[in-house]
């Protein structure tokens, strides 16, 4: 493909788009040079920034995971000091949660929500620019603590006092970074809520919105409700550490367990923040490749809302060993078990969508199916963890590590990869390399299971989490898990290669891209013009939009 041909295609697509919209206002493209990315208020540019940022952080967080797995490759302490090991587990979690999964979802929301609801941009474009650009600075501050004298945070991402208060002065940097990340998330969420409420094209009623828009609307509310709670908790840590208060110190009349209650009141909704947008992505992809409408759209919406509601009343299931009254333990056990009902409904709906469809298995569909199966495995171990008496045995072991990595890696991360393959042709105008994409899926899937499945066993057999060295009977499975980790980590370089290759060129994508695709984003040319839906599109029946 010559570049001149590229230009022609691109140009004619723009013209076609303009003509289609009968738009007399002159289409202006992005500003030239690097300043485009600094000053941009365009939802597509900002979406791209978020996605690249998240990809970079994915490799930073992944490198930390590999330090952990290298140390655990065999018994004994070979590579890092236990304190640095603890820093790695702490930072790995903070980076992966706040730097990878959340920004990737926000990036996808930026790109897709306006296009899905027929809006020209996000409702608050300048705020949008801010919410992105705060993040790189926040992470620069957070990561810089690793190079400070007193080291990075090493008390676990949950920041439990009194342990976290033993940290040196770099603690202040960690709190500052968390505040910044929180501000970024809340601003992004307000923007998404404002966009969905105010910018829908005429005729785009709530029950016509694609599931991805619905799940993000609910996620945004979770973020707005819980991030300030986290901000409060870490501020109290800050004053306990530096200003002599004793919110969490029993010696001063405080209560260390109160921190855990406040933290998990944020933390549990947070885990749904990390998975609800994934549900939306999967609900978009499976119908496309099954060539059949999503089964039970209404129940999907209600199930998502129920999960969000329940996520606020289950937090203490993270704390069954802290010494709660029996009534509390029973309540949190029952409420936690309840979550499996709406989650089950979602899984059943996806399976019913596949049933009697006409399926093909392109890379996005492979990742989506991988998601449904492996997320369900993580969901089932979650159900086991809900049982308080059994949880007392599982708590703080590798069984828990296996559980949440199953829902977050072949869960959340797979959904992000599925989304990338699914919408990449729309973003770049080029098809990605299907053969490499499939290879990426199969290699990742084999290694991710080699990595995380054995953790169930060592956890049940008694290996506790966050330890740099272990007893010899756990050696074999740790060796296997470490091999899985390196395999999975390095196979993600394929992903980068595939994305870069697709950005640079490839077979031209049509506007519709996928045979079975529905939704407004597929009605604009590929690549999507810099500005879309400056005139609101016509919305027909729901089957057009979702």
């Amino acid at each position, binding site marked *: 493909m010559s570049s001149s041909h590229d230009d022609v295609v691109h140009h004619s697509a723009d013209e076609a788009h303009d003509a289609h919209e009968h738009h007399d206002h002159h289409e202006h493209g992005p500003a030239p040079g690097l300043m485009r990315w600094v000053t941009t208020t365009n939802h597509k540019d900002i979406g791209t920034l978020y996605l690249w940022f998240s990809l970079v952080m994915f490799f930073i967080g992944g490198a930390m995971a590999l330090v952990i797995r290298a140390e655990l490759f065999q018994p004994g302490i070979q590579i890092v000091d236990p304190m640095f090991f603890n820093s790695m587990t702490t930072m790995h979690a903070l980076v992966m949660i706040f730097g990878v999964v959340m920004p990737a979802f926000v990036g996808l929301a930026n790109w897709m929500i306006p296009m899905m609801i027929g809006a020209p941009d996000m409702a608050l474009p300048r705020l949008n620019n801010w919410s992105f650009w705060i993040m790189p600075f926040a992470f620069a501050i957070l990561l810089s603590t690793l190079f400070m004298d007193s080291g990075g945070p090493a008390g676990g991402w949950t920041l*439990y006092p009194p342990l976290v208060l033993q940290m040196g002065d770099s603690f202040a940097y960690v709190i500052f970074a968390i505040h910044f990340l929180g501000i970024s998330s809340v601003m992004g969420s307000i923007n998404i809520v404002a966009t969905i409420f105010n910018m829908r094209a005429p005729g785009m009623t709530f029950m016509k919105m694609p599931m991805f828009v619905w799940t993000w609307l609910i996620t945004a509310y979770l973020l707005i409700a819980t991030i300030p709670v986290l901000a409060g908790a870490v501020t109290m840590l800050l004053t306990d550490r530096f200003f002599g208060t004793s919110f969490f110190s029993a010696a001063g009349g405080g209560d260390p367990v109160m921190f855990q209650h406040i933290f998990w009141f944020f933390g549990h909704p947070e885990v749904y923040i990390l998975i609800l947008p994934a549900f939306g992505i999967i609900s978009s992809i499976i119908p496309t490749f099954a060539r059949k409408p999503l089964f039970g759209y209404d129940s999907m919406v209600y199930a998502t809302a129920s999960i969000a509601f329940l996520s606020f009343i289950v937090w203490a299931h993270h704390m069954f060993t802290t010494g709660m009254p*029996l009534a509390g333990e029973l309540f949190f056990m029952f409420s936690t*078990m309840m979550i499996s009902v709406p989650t089950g409904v979602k899984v059943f709906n996806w399976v019913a969508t596949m049933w009697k469809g006409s*399926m093909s298995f392109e890379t996005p569909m492979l990742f989506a*199916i991988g998601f449904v199966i492996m997320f369900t495995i993580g969901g*089932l171990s979650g159900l086991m963890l809900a049982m308080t008496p059994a949880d007392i045995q599982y708590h703080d072991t590798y069984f828990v590590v296996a559980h949440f990595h199953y829902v977050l890696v072949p869960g959340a991360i797979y959904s992000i990869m599925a989304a990338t393959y699914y919408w990449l042709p729309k973003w770049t105008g080029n098809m990605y390399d299907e053969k490499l994409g499939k290879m990426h899926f199969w290699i990742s899937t084999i290694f991710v299971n080699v990595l995380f499945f054995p953790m169930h066993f060592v956890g049940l057999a008694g290996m506790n989490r966050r330890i740099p060295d272990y007893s010899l009977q756990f050696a074999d499975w740790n060796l296997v898990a470490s091999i899985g980790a390196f395999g999975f980590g390095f196979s993600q370089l394929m992903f980068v290669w595939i994305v870069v290759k697709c950005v640079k060129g490839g077979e031209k994508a049509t506007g519709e891209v996928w045979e079975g695709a529905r939704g407004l984003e597929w009605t604009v040319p590929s690549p999507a013009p810099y500005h879309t839906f400056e005139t609101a599109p016509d919305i027909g029946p729901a089957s057009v939009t979702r």
Partner: protein
Amino acid sequence: MRSSPKSSAWRAPLRAPLPAPLPAALLRLAVLLAGGLLSGGAFAGWDELNMPTGVTSVSEEVHGLHMLIFYICCAIGAVVFGIMIVSMFLHRKSRGAEASDFHESTTVEIVWTVVPLVILIAMAIPAARVLIKMEDFSDSEMSVKVTGYQWRWQYEYLDEGISFYSALDAEQNAARQQGADIDLDQFGDTYLRDVDNELVLPVGKKIRFLHTAADVIHSWWVPDFAIKKDSIPGFINENWAKIEEPGIYRGKCAELCGRDHGFMPIVVRAVPQEEFDAWVAEKQEEMKTAEAATTRHWSTEELVAMGETVHGQSCVGCHQAQGQGIPGMFPAIAGSEVATGDVSAHLATVMNGVEGTSMTAFRDALSDTELAAVVTYQRNAFGNETGDAVQPLAVKELRDGKGGEVIRQSLLSRPGPTTAELDIDVSGVN
């Protein structure tokens, strides 16, 4: 201790595992994959990959509950994944499948909401029953207070008046240090699982454990009793166990508690009542002797010898074996102002800790003799050569809040006070 009559979860090592260099480890993996996985012989039997059944009625019920939920989850998984796989085979475009257009069915949706609810209720009832039993602390026959420290446990038998500390076995502690060139195989399946002082408990008695901590949150976990409870500074938690069989049962601290979280094991030796009574008598005698030791005069050599052991258990984690610390994280003792300056300030630092750092107060974690010994050791080792010696009695006086002056005198006299001097000083106070 290492020949355990019963140690269920930590039973036999799967094979001879070795802390091998990389090529050897890979070779081992190759052997595993080639022969082991197929025959099922190389990896541990399934018993070692599952939750232990344990030796209390509660642990057996918890294990039963675990297996019940596990099988239910397997059944759910089999049905859901089975349908998916069938669908992926039958309804694929490449086989010429035509997509139908159905997208809702109220009946089906009600069914798959109600059926899971019924399954959940079926799971919740036995779970609640076990939980209620676990939380029933009534009629306990003896109480043991467990206090978590960075990084060891203190056990206090409230009725017997026995109190001691339990930390990772010294040899294993040396072996697990970075760069230690020690063969881990010699420790067999108890690597990182042996302690210096076991918690000895009688079988057949309902024992109540009271949990608290001195510095940060720890969590006392013995899988064979199915009990795990957080030790929280300033709070007391409780749980209980009635051990059915004599044996050695091992556990670990389950809550991240800082640098050496991975190195605070728990060993419980459960014995018949008579044997327990004998142990109690012996331990009480031992404690009397230890108390007597506090009041006698110690030579600098004795103190240094004991101090080296204490340093190796309580200080080495951060300050390292040669007192060099870890630059940027933990200060050195070698040549430090504290260890070469004012003796009382040194003792105060060890006893009271340093606020806002990982340096916790060892006032309660160490005995008078241990405190005196470790300070003496640190002031004479690592090239510090101050010649100072701290007498256990001086620490006792300081702890009891009397005789500040005594300490000053006995501490400041170099090299070390004579017995006569010390006796005079002490008698002066008394």
